[in-house]
């Protein structure tokens, strides 16, 4: 397992994906720069984070994780890479799991760099209010947890389609409606693509560790994770290479 991990890392290390990691902090700087206004909150950090997190988690995060998942399958789709990889003494399950863990790791790095960009922005703008570390951690980790089912679906779709645009269009078709769905108190909590927003929305419910109730986390995030992850897993077991 470790050696597969290492070989996957070698494939990525010198690739363009490293540059991809710097896009979230740049987007963070942009979103933080444009967000200002009065939302009945004294702490300047919270104002910035509420507004920047909204666009970031609603649109950017679900879309970019799809790009990362597609990227992870790129080498294998070219010139019969799946054949070469699976001819090695590895099981398909481990290859799948490795790729999934790697995408999750990259997304976590993106989340941390995004957090970093917020700190930098605050320093530039000279915000002196105390940084709300506790809620920020919860939202950064929450956003990461909430994308885990979406990553699984994107990985599944990226394994099916050789064409990069096909899994991306599926991602777009599911992500755009969440702009509307999250406004609904009735349907919002059940839409998997809306969860990154709800879990990064630091103005949301504050009683739990995350910003959504535990039942919702288990049922919606957990449930969609199980469907997408094992769907992809079973598909990959049977995939003709």
């Amino acid at each position, binding site marked *: 397992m470790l050696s597969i991990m290492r070989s996957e890392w070698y494939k990525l290390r010198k690739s*363009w*994906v490293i540059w*991809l990691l710097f*896009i979230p902090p740049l*987007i963070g700087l*942009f*979103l933080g720069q*444009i967000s200002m206004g009065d939302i009945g909150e004294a702490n300047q950090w919270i104002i910035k984070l509420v507004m920047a997190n909204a*666009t970031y988690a609603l*649109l*950017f995060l679900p*879309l*970019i994780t799809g*790009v990362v998942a*597609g*990227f992870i399958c*790129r080498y294998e789709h070219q010139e019969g890479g799946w054949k070469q990889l699976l001819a090695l003494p590895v099981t398909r399950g481990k290859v799948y799991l490795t790729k999934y863990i790697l995408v999750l790791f990259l997304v976590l790095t993106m989340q941390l760099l995004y957090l970093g960009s917020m700190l930098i922005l605050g320093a530039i703008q000279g915000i002196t209010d105390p940084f709300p570390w506790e809620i920020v951690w919860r939202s950064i980790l929450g956003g990461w947890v909430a994308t885990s089912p979406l990553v699984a679906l994107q990985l599944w779709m990226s394994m099916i389609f*050789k*064409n*990069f*645009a*096909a899994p*991306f*269009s599926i991602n*777009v*078709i599911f992500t*755009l*409606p969440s*702009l*509307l769905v999250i406004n*609904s108190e*009735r*349907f919002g909590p059940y839409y998997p693509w809306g969860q990154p927003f709800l879990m990064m929305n630091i103005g949301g419910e504050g009683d739990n560790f995350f910003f959504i109730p535990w039942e919702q986390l288990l049922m919606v995030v957990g449930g969609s994770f199980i469907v997408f992850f094992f769907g992809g897993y079973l598909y990959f077991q049977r995939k003709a290479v």
Partner: protein
Amino acid sequence: MILRLLAVDFLKIRRKGLWLLTFIGPIGVVALQMVNYGVRKDYLFSLTDDHWQQYIGNVSAFTPLAIILGIVILTSFMASIEDETNAWKQLIALPVSKREVYLSKFTMISCLLFVSSIILLLMTYFYGLTLGLGEDIPYLQIIQYSLLPFFASLPVLGLQLWLATVCTNQAIPTTVGVISVIFAYSAMYLPDWVIWKWPSLDNQWDQPYLNGLMGIAMGLAIYLIGMTDFKRRDVK
């Protein structure tokens, strides 16, 4: 010659899903409003008296995002079809100029986008009729908000087509597309010269036509730059 190239290009995208996406885009944009009005029509109606205005506003909140993502997907899809089979080489080996190849691709994607804008126009109009939004139907505005985003997004098309054709790694144009859509979503915070703001038809003079005109001019310029670069590059 260009017509025959175009016919070939349309033949290549048959049964690949591009036409399907062309239809899904506008239908999806209006379908979202069907859900929106289906769930909370009374609430939406209670907010304002000008129901048509509000309805057009709701639809056109999604149009720029859909059209930009549509451009990203269609250009990248088209390039992938050529990349997958190493068809660029074969295409260039034909007795056609590279300029014509590029023009044909640009025209094909423009046609798809224009068709989807027409569908958006029809869907917006007919679904609007069923809602009972009032007797005064603002035809001109429906036409403006359905067709002008197409013209206003031509610069984005020029940019994405260029990226998709020159990059072998389609993750690059797609990532640029994701950034573009964030800009389009934050359009109201951007200055008027930013091309990703234009599909929203918003500008400081309140003249939607201006965005369409700027789009045509800038789209032409970016198209020419992309074509010149494509012509000079080695085929992969």
